[in-house]
């Protein structure tokens, strides 16, 4: 419903439309401009890699796209919604329906089992208990962990944890997946599996993916690569 509150014309068919975004952090009296007039369009169904040196603002940009941060100026329009115009609670609802999060350190809730972790986003929907559980199990099946549904995060390997996190990211069927160094904490084999899984999600489930990575091999899996350099896009 909030998506209809602030309709914005899309440029071409960009699902993610970042326009002239500036992000500054105030530290004491100092102002730090992390993003300096960024514009970026991600068409629906794209798989985009954001690269760049440490501190260049990749995570900052991703957080803006994901709606957990707001730009100092400029617009971030995702799936037709101007994220900056939503109130705190509207934004929270919007995130729960529109964005799937994949973190570097998985961010699973340690006291909840795999299937309970995956089910979390569905608690924010009107689905019944049974339906939620079914969908969570389906999502686990997609990531190949149906047999680990009752395991707790500490009983899983890093790669498995990240797969549970991916299941959680897709369970509410959001249009966009944001991933901040999803393979950053994994060995190369696990990283390979995760990247393959993300490719599948992009290809077969039509998920639009924005991924921040340092790893050139990971970036190669994406269709498009963008390079951030000191707060501006370079090539």
């Amino acid at each position: 419903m909030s998506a209809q509150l602030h309709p914005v014309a899309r440029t071409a068919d960009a699902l993610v439309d970042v326009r002239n975004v500036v992000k500054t952090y105030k530290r004491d009296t100092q102002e730090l401009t992390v993003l300096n007039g960024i514009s970026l369009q991600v068409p629906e169904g794209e798989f985009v890699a954001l690269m760049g040196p440490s501190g260049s603002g990749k995570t900052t940009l991703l957080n803006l796209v994901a709606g957990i941060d707001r730009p100092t100026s400029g617009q971030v329009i995702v799936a037709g919604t101007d994220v900056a115009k939503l109130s705190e609670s509207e934004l929270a609802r919007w995130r729960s329906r529109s964005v799937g999060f994949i973190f570097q350190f998985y961010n699973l809730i340690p006291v909840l089992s795999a299937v309970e972790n995956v089910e979390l986003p569905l608690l924010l929907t009107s689905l019944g208990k049974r339906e939620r559980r079914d969908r969570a199990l389906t999502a686990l099946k997609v990531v190949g962990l149906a047999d680990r549904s009752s395991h707790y995060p500490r009983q899983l390997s890093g790669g498995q944890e990240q797969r549970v996190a991916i299941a959680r990211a897709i369970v509410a069927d959001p249009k966009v997946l944001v991933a901040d160094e999803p393979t950053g904490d994994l060995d190369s084999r696990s990283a390979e599996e995760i990247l393959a899984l993300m490719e599948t999600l992009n290809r077969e489930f039509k998920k639009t993916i924005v991924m921040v990575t340092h790893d050139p091999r990971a970036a190669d899996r994406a269709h498009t690569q963008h390079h951030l350099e000191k707060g501006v896009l370079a090539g």
Partner: protein
Amino acid sequence: MAVPISYNIRNVRQRWQVTLLAIVGIAMVVAVFTVIMSMSEGFRLALRATGRDDNAIIVQRGSASELTSGVPLDQRNQIIVDDRVARGADGQPLASWDWVIVISAPKVTDGQPTNVTFRAVPPRAYEVRGGIEVVEGRKYTPGLDEVIVGRRLTDRIQGMHLGGTVKYQKKEFKIVGIFTNDGGAFESEIWGDYDVIGALFQRGPGSNSLVVRMKDPQDIPALDRWIRDQPQMQLQALSERKYYADQAGPTAGALKGLASLVAIIMGIGAVFGAMNTMYAIVAARTREIGTLRALGFSRTSILLSFMMESVFLAVIAGVLGCLLAFPMNGFSTGTGQTQSFSEIAFAFQITPPILTIGMLFAVVMGVVGGLLPAWRGARMPITTALREA
């Protein structure tokens, strides 16, 4: 939609060490708080019942207690025939004159000597003083070396039982009865015959104090004025009940003050302790809070979730604290009564209001202890919360 309760239950269970720490901390405070409150309540009860409103007690002006007061015989005889003094069925004035001394007797617990009031009263005392009831044995026989002892003494002082003896000045008095006084201070005393024991005290024909039943309690001030107008009398008349309340007043007041003080200090300490524990519990979960918020859970639902968890812990701690305190209920003990130098025994009284206050106390600690750190976690920017270890 709310954060699932299973999340809280699992957290409580899986982090049981910290949970236990928080619970034990709060439980201890509630227990001590309850015990102190019940002590204060028991003390209040012990003193409340002493004396009657329609009795006047006549003591020496300026004396701090009955022990240091003196009422000469001739003055006593003048006062008890006053028109305002009620008379018994036999037409005699309803008056009782007491000699009061303090003897030393060994405690049951450690055998250490403690002060016990020994009161010599005329047989009329039963009628004049209110609420005296012999619950075991019988009254002492006037003229014999017999005494009755207050029930509170029986389990506190060695040898204070039916058939036992009280020793005073090489003389032995047989205990022929146990009496109660509606929980009043007389229950901590030994009573014997004025003529027998009074003589033994070697104080002459007077008494320490004089108690008279008033026809009309409103007349006590008038009686007092009349007494003060007699140049030879260094006496005053007061309401008996008020007199005993004042006797215990400073102690009861001090005890109450102490109770509040200790409770406040412990409360502050425990709130900080509990807050510290809760803070640690929540701080360890800051990234979880960030994750939950990123997923779309509202601040309110997260705050509520953590509040529920800490209040739940606090309620358990409160119940535990009350249970810890409960064995003290009815437990009798004594305290040095400053003015008369003797012990007043009293029982710890854990009443429903005290338990309620103890529980409330626990819940408040839980709310305060849990709210602040949860508030912090829910207030900080999601991006900051996600970056925390």
